[in-house]
């Protein structure tokens, strides 16, 4: 009785869980061919891959012991407020930026420092307690990386929860054009680009002749997956 009925009362975390896109694809289907196809489509939609160079200064470090308590205080503040009020993504990032004011006093980033006075009061309190820095943990680095990268549109879309709108309200998801009326498609050889009749057994890419099949096996069979 306990588990079933208490689901409604159980406090669920509203933290957005990030699943890496490849992991999501792997969890979705275990088929090699569909994985390869998914990976190809994602690569097509990508902006420049991996160009966001590491811009943070390597000499800035977060100290661990003293500031842990403050960081913990801010985080618990965030968690409580996130549960009671629905914070938007921007407000949560404002709160998270406070951790960075504390952790990196030397580097005052120009990105995302809020204007509201309430945060200013908290931040001046925090700045008094800053100290010399120590080596950054991997978690602190990851936290900062996640905070610095602006949220991608897909994350924002997911958070906006557009499926819960009533069906007569037009939204971004309903404006998508949807699947084609006929599923017949032409296949093109992945090596030379002409019309393809044959399929690779392992990865599902098309090719047109034996020559192209040899090239495919040498270079790019399972390229996206393995």
């Amino acid at each position, binding site marked *: 009785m306990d588990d079933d009925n208490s689901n409604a009362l159980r406090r669920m975390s509203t933290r957005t869980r990030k699943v890496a896109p490849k992991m999501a694809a792997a969890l979705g289907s275990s088929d090699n061919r569909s994985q390869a196809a998914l990976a190809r489509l994602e690569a097509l939609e990508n902006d420049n891959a991996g160009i966001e160079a590491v811009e943070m200064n390597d000499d800035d470090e977060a100290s661990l012991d003293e500031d842990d308590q403050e960081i913990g205080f801010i985080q618990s503040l965030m968690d409580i407020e996130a549960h009671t009020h629905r914070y938007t993504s921007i407000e949560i990032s404002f709160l998270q930026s406070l951790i960075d004011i504390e952790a990196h006093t030397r580097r005052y980033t120009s990105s995302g420092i809020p204007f509201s006075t309430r945060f200013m009061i908290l931040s001046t309190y925090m700045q008094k307690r800053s100290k010399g820095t120590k080596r950054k943990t991997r978690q602190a680095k990851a936290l900062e990386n996640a905070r610095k990268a602006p949220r991608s549109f897909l994350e924002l879309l997911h958070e906006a929860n557009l499926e819960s709108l009533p069906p007569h309200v037009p939204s971004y998801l309903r404006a998508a054009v949807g699947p084609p009326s006929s599923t017949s498609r*032409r296949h093109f050889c992945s090596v030379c680009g002409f019309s393809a009749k044959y399929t690779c057994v392992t990865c599902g890419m098309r090719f047109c002749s034996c020559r192209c099949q040899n090239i495919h096996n040498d270079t790019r069979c399972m390229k996206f997956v393995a």
Partner: protein
Amino acid sequence: MSNVVVLDNGGGFIKAGQGGERNPAVVIPNCLYRPLTSKKFLHPTTTFSSSPDDLTSAAIRRPIDRGYLINPDLQRDIWSHLFTSLLHVTPSSSSLLLTEPLFSLPSIQRSTDELVFEDFGFSSLVVADSPSLVHLYETSCRPCGLVSEAQCSLVVDCGFSFTQASPVFQNITLNYGVKRIDLGGKALTNYLKELVSYRAINVMDETLLMDDVKEKLCFVSLDVERDLQFARKHGKDNLFRCTYVLPDGVTHTKGYVKDPEAAKRHLALTDGASPSEAIETKNETDQLGEFDLTNERFLVPEMIFQPADLGMNEAGLAECIVRAVNACHPYLHPVLYQSIILTGGSTLFPRFVERLEKDLRPLVPDDYQVNITTQEE
């Protein structure tokens, strides 16, 4: 002279100018780029095709993802450079007309408002969506045409991030009838990069160079099967083969098409006709730093018309238009089909309009006329 700054904040380019003028005063790419010669990200001062710098392996950071502004800080950087150095306006004494895509999320709208009012201090702001503005422009250009008399049109925008067909009625976009394909100039360039990297040279980092290749060499074919037959031929008979030379920093800093006259030979092919005679070309082997394009030239824009060929589960442009029109009231259907307006950078491929008409005509009922207009200057 009005004091209104008009800013079309697009995913690929920013078009900005003073209200009341005919053409935008400034068209720059909406990104920060870092060529190999510099360590910091620079502001572009003119479109990349007319800039003299070497664009090999330039890294790019864009504030707009899939059409929506997700990085307001980067956008603030770009806008402040635009307002101070290129447009020479003071925001505090001007009003702003800004375009935003439809179905924007509240968090994005809030960050845009903050950007305009708190960071720049404009005196007033109007946020419009691009289809209604295109309709307005078209009616002002041709006040006696069908578009302005019926006050209704279907704006097809093939932009950088996506392609959208939006019906506009009485200057209001009917957002229940808007249909969107998630393919745009960015996906076209990525597809071209993938094809060239598989077949010739690895160009996966060279977004700006491949943009140039796409604009100079790609076209839309009216009959893909026949053109694939022609592209198979060797040597002089192959009318499509074109070589593009990559910049090497020593002899030339910008890439160029090796033989611009040869690139236009495909235009001699009309429907059903066979090529008359081929032009003499020298027999050169591929040197380092150049690659050949044959069927990629028309297979890349083919993606917009048939995304299913890539494996994407989305309908093509013709079907998108049909679905957008069908979502509106039946009385509007004939008028919408007769007033289709094409806009956006990806419609500039040669033969785009003819191919679209050819694809669309079978899907439209017989008694409706189909009339497509482009933005001629």
